[in-house]
């Protein structure tokens, strides 16, 4: 009789953790300890409970570890925590030693998680709620990360709580997980063959680079000039710049329009035109688009006989106190210099100096000019989205005269 109550107690405990109990096996273990080895019942219960818990990688409750639930939005690296949340995203584990990775969220926020393969944890499903006990928060590539190891208990929870991700302005994003409402303002040529799409998303507060990687199953691409609600993107930091990985995100096209914030504004004089400006040749290989050297050599695809012409300007903009690198793409170069791509190609093909002639013309048309550029800064260079020539403003002259003569 006593044995059956012990078996029932152990079975219930582990079933609470979401593990199916094998009552026969537990009973035979208890009997063996008590009857064969003369262990007292309390000690036998403790021993078998620990054994079964280890077998199923669950933590015996009632230990010294805290099971107080914390809010996901408040987690900081270096803590042992227990949380309850909804798995809002699952992604392909980057390594075989990781069983599952994804994002778990509650109403206070969201965090990226990984479950180690060695944890032997039950698999979690997207869209379901779980209680995670004794997980560890650490920091991976500057992002807080929740790790599930062999000591973590994962229990499915019934919850139909509605989870509303909190949308934040782009300017307030930090490394980790973020949700935004933004417009796709630019699409760039993918710089890597594994990249599905990359470009720039913007809202009133600023812009951020986004990337969608080719994955199984294939993600949808974003449409240009369309506003999206983007939930649970992964915000990465590299060289001090943030970017948004959309592979973990859910994105839903939205009605309406957003006035995209200007980003950084830089005003000043063009004091230097860097080599690599002017008429350039780009690699024709799908998705490459790298600049070819003089001998039509692509660093990846070697010699390319066919190529695509493009115009660009790499310059230094100087306001007298600071100099900044700027990069202007074809449309802005045409607008600023008054030389179109077609004219530049013709110049290069019919001139003894070839492409150098285009460089000189562009230099003479832009050096020493006052301009204002708007764009986003990346790797210490402003990628200009808008550009305008500044002209003499008599109203400002009056102000300055007052300032100079007012003393």
């Amino acid at each position: 009789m006593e044995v059956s109550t012990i078996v029932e107690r152990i079975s219930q405990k582990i079933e609470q953790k979401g593990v199916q109990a094998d009552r026969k096996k537990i009973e035979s273990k208890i009997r063996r300890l008590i009857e064969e080895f003369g262990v007292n019942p309390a000690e036998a219960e403790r021993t078998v409970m620990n054994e079964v818990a280890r077998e199923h990688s669950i933590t015996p409750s009632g230990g010294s570890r805290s099971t107080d639930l914390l809010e996901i939005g408040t987690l900081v690296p270096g803590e042992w925590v227990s949380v309850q949340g909804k798995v809002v995203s699952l992604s392909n584990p980057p390594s075989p030693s990781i069983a599952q990775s994804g994002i778990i969220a509650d109403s206070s926020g969201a965090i990226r998680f990984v479950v180690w393969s060695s944890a032997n944890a039950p698999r979690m499903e997207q869209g379901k709620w779980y209680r995670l006990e004794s997980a560890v928060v650490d920091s991976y590539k500057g992002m807080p990360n929740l790790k599930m190891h062999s000591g973590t208990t994962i229990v499915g929870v019934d919850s139909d709580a509605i989870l509303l991700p909190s949308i934040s302005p782009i300017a307030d994003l930090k490394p980790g997980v973020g949700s935004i409402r933004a417009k796709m303002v630019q699409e760039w040529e993918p710089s890597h063959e594994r990249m599905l799409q990359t470009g720039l998303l913007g809202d009133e507060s600023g812009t951020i680079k986004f990337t969608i990687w080719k994955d199984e199953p294939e993600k949808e691409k974003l449409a240009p000039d369309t506003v999206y609600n983007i939930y649970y993107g992964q915000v990465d930091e590299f060289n001090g710049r943030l970017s948004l990985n959309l592979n973990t995100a859910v994105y839903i096209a939205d009605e309406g329009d957003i006035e995209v914030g200007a980003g950084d504004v830089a005003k000043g004089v063009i004091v230097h035109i860097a080599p690599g400006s002017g008429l350039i040749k780009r690699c024709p290989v799908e998705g490459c688009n790298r600049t070819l050297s003089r001998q039509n050599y692509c660093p990846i695809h070697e010699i390319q006989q066919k190529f695509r012409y493009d115009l660009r300007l790499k310059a230094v903009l100087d306001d007298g106190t600071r100099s900044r690198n700027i990069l202007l793409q074809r449309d802005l170069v045409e607008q600023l210099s008054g030389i179109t791509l077609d004219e530049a190609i013709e110049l290069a093909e019919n001139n003894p100096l070839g492409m150098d002639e285009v460089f000189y013309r562009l230099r003479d048309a832009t050096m020493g000019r006052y301009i204002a550029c708007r764009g986003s800064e990346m790797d210490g260079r402003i990628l200009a989205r808008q550009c305008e020539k500044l002209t003499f403003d008599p109203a400002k002259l009056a102000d300055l005269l007052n300032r100079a003569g007012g003393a």
Partner: protein
Amino acid sequence: MAERKGAGPRHREGFEREPARRVFAAELREVNLQFKDGEDEKSPSYILLPTGIRANRIFFIGTLTEKERRGDQNIFYHARISDPTGTFFVIAGSYQPEAMQQLAKIEPPAFVAVVGKPNVYQSPSGAVLVSIRAESIVTVDADTRNCWVMDTAKSTLDRLDQFGSTEDSEKAKAHYNTDPEVYRKMAYDALTQLKI
């Protein structure tokens, strides 16, 4: 090695190009102090402006009034460029091939924009002069010239507003015994010439 890396508070992370200071010819004419920031051969060299800022590079726009080709083995160009307050002396030699070729093509008179590095030197007669080794010279229109006069007046007034509160301006005050009113008037006079 490790020590040189952290040499002084002006070294920010990574390389940052020196800004091109805006200065009127009348102020540049007064400069007679040039110094190096650091012991290294490659350390940047600065001139100290009387209004209290160091300059490793300057940007100005003026009227090219004269150019002269000199030398036979080592050809260089000498040019005079005037702004509303005075004249800049510009040289472009074989070490500045780009500027030399640009200057060769420009016929005075013309508005030109110049980026270059100032140098203080002593003439055989003992006078201390400042000349600018041009990095680039291009022709610009009158509107751009007017922008520069305003920009330079504003920069000069900004420096005067900060005069006495920065390390460089303390140094300038001690070295040049600068009277801020002189430079305020210079900026004012330059601006009045824009009203046509």
